[in-house]
């Protein structure tokens, strides 16, 4: 395994920032390159560890960090006179952070005055130290050399990368803070004031901070993905808290799967489709359960088992396609983007931090009625998809890694999923030489047989789930939004759709 290639931070120094080229000081012996790698390291650790409790301290620390980053950016030599397009992202980010600082100063409401984040403070100080170092020795940098230009670009990217990760961490903390407050209030039986913001977590006043930090995160990301001109031209990212997000994500998924399946797809793409269908089934179970609890959907004895069976079948089929999908395979890009959006859109409704939220919590989330309708429509459409995927299993030219297929062939025969060879015959399904040399080999007969059987089972399960979901929709199983009725009986208004809940105690 090539993981020996792993390096720690600061193992690499660009020419500009080499420790041998910049005199050491007694105060901070790192080169500028090492400092920027340290910022990257700290930002990663922050993002991996972040939780809602840190939201206030992170938010208070953010403007100072951006100011320090801008200071370092400005200190880098080779700036062109006048307005430089290259500097616009950091200028925008700085302006956004400055307005956040203005809003925070003297504020008594959340997050109020208080401590700052030691990790962000450390990154801030590192940026300041780096700026001081560059200002002292920057004049000695041979700007005419290509290496120097490359190093300067690397420095700008590292600065923006650190800001991007940190902005995302602040955003994650704000979302989790909102969730924590909602959960605390609910468990204490208190009402809580939601912001005028279609988010399950946009607790006033965190909703506005989420918006503002999202703007910062998008600015940094657009620089890093080389899309800043488009961002400036007004290309908007879809708001993550849009209650119609799931419906749109699933509609796009439907389009992209059909487009992809019309072509000759690789097993890695079929793996993505089948796994995403399994996810859709699992998330649908969660939504159906929550919607039934909330009175948004008529409870049914047939719907949940049918969807659960379809989910298991999709996952079983996916594990078989997984045998054929080698590592490093490139996915169809629109399909992968659509799958990522489906995942994100479901998480917005079904998840609480990293795990599933309770049905009660999901039941109160905005957009639940739309989400249930959309997810049932997708379950309904799953039958056709399963049939098309089953056709792919009949392709005669399927190949896969020798070892995985050998293992699968023996397991399938042993489990009785494929026809066993005649008694006493010892069949080698994949040659040991192919396993040893890690070759791609044609799918052995038992695997092919079991795969076709799994495809048929998935089709059958998806058709059954589709029928129940369709029947449910025909009978009006989901209540029309705002009707307050479900199958002829009064249900409470899905109040999560309303942005005007009674105010709860400020915290």
């Amino acid at each position, binding site marked *: 395994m090539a993981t020996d290639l792993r390096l720690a931070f600061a193992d690499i120094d660009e020419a500009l920032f080499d420790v041998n080229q910049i005199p050491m000081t007694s105060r901070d012996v790192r080169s500028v390159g090492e400092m920027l790698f340290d910022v990257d390291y700290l930002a990663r650790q922050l993002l991996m560890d972040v939780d809602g409790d840190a939201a206030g301290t992170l938010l208070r620390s953010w403007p100072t960090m951006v100011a320090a980053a801008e200071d370092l950016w400005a200190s880098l030599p080779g700036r062109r006179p006048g307005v430089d397009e290259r500097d616009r992202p950091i200028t925008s980010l700085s302006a956004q952070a400055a307005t956040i600082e203005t809003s925070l100063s003297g504020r008594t409401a959340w997050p109020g005055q208080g401590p700052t984040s030691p990790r962000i403070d450390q990154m801030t100080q590192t940026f300041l130290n780096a700026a001081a170092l560059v200002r002292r020795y920057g004049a000695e940098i041979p700007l005419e050399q290509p290496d120097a230009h490359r190093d300067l670009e690397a420095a700008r990217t590292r600065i923006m990368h650190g800001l991007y990760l940190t902005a995302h961490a602040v955003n994650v903390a704000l979302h989790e803070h909102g969730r924590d407050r909602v959960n605390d209030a609910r468990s204490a039986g208190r009402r809580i004031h939601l912001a005028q913001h279609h988010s399950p977590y946009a607790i006033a006043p965190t909703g506005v901070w989420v918006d503002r930090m999202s703007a910062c995160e998008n600015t940094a990301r657009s620089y890093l993905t080389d899309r800043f001109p488009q961002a400036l031209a007004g290309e908007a990212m879809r708001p993550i808290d849009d209650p119609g997000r799931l419906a749109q994500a699933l509609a796009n998924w439907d389009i992209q799967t059909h487009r992809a399946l019309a072509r000759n797809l690789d097993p890695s793409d079929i793996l993505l489709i089948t796994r995403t269908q399994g996810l859709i089934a699992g998330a649908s179970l969660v939504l159906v359960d929550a919607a039934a609890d909330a009175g948004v959907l008529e409870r049914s004895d047939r719907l949940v088992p049918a969807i659960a069976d379809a989910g298991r079948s999709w996952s079983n089929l996916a594990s078989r396609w997984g045998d054929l999908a080698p590592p490093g395979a490139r996915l169809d890009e629109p399909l992968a983007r659509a799958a990522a959006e489906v995942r994100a859109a479901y998480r917005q409704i079904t998840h609480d931090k990293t*795990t599933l939220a309770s049905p009660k919590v999901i039941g109160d989330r905005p957009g639940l009625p739309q989400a249930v309708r959309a997810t049932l429509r997708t379950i309904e459409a799953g039958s056709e998809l399963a049939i098309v995927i089953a056709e792919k299993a009949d392709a005669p030219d399927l190949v896969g890694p020798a070892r995985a297929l050998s293992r699968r062939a023996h397991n399938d025969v042993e489990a009785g999923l494929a026809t066993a060879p005649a008694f006493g015959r010892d069949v080698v399904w994949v040659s040991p030489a192919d396993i040893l040399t890690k070759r791609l080999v044609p799918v052995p007969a038992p695997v092919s047989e079991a795969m076709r059987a799994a495809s048929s089972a998935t089709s059958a399960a998806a058709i059954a789930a589709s029928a129940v979901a369709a029947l449910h929709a025909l009978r009006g199983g989901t209540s029309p939004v705002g009707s307050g009725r479900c199958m002829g009986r009064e249900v409470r208004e899905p109040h999560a759709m309303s942005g005007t809940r009674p105010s709860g105690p400020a915290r």
Partner: protein
Amino acid sequence: MDQTDLRPKGTPVDTLNADGTWGRLGSIALLLHQAANQVWSDADRATADSPLHDLGLGVYLAHSQASALLPDDYVLPDLDADEELEERTPLQLLTEAEELTRPLPLHRPDLVHGSQLVLDLCDLIREARGLGY
């Protein structure tokens, strides 16, 4: 401010050497492929609505991001998962993949989506920890 760890940290290499970068990305792809398979294997033993299905898909999508950064003609050294990898937990695999991204020269035009990969890996590590890995 806190002291920086100044201990020697491995053998310096030239990160702008394409072979080194692609080798690291190839290793990341292998690690994430293995992690996705392991999470999905756990998910398949759990209920249909287990959050592990979601984590598995997230890891697989991160694997595809890493793979997309590789040149078209790059071939991973191993087609089968290394047996050694099978002994590691998904969290260990994710953490190792994240560590491998640290020296990537993200400023290079061909690694323009590298920052997104780093961010997604950090999110996935946090999620994996939250799910008990």
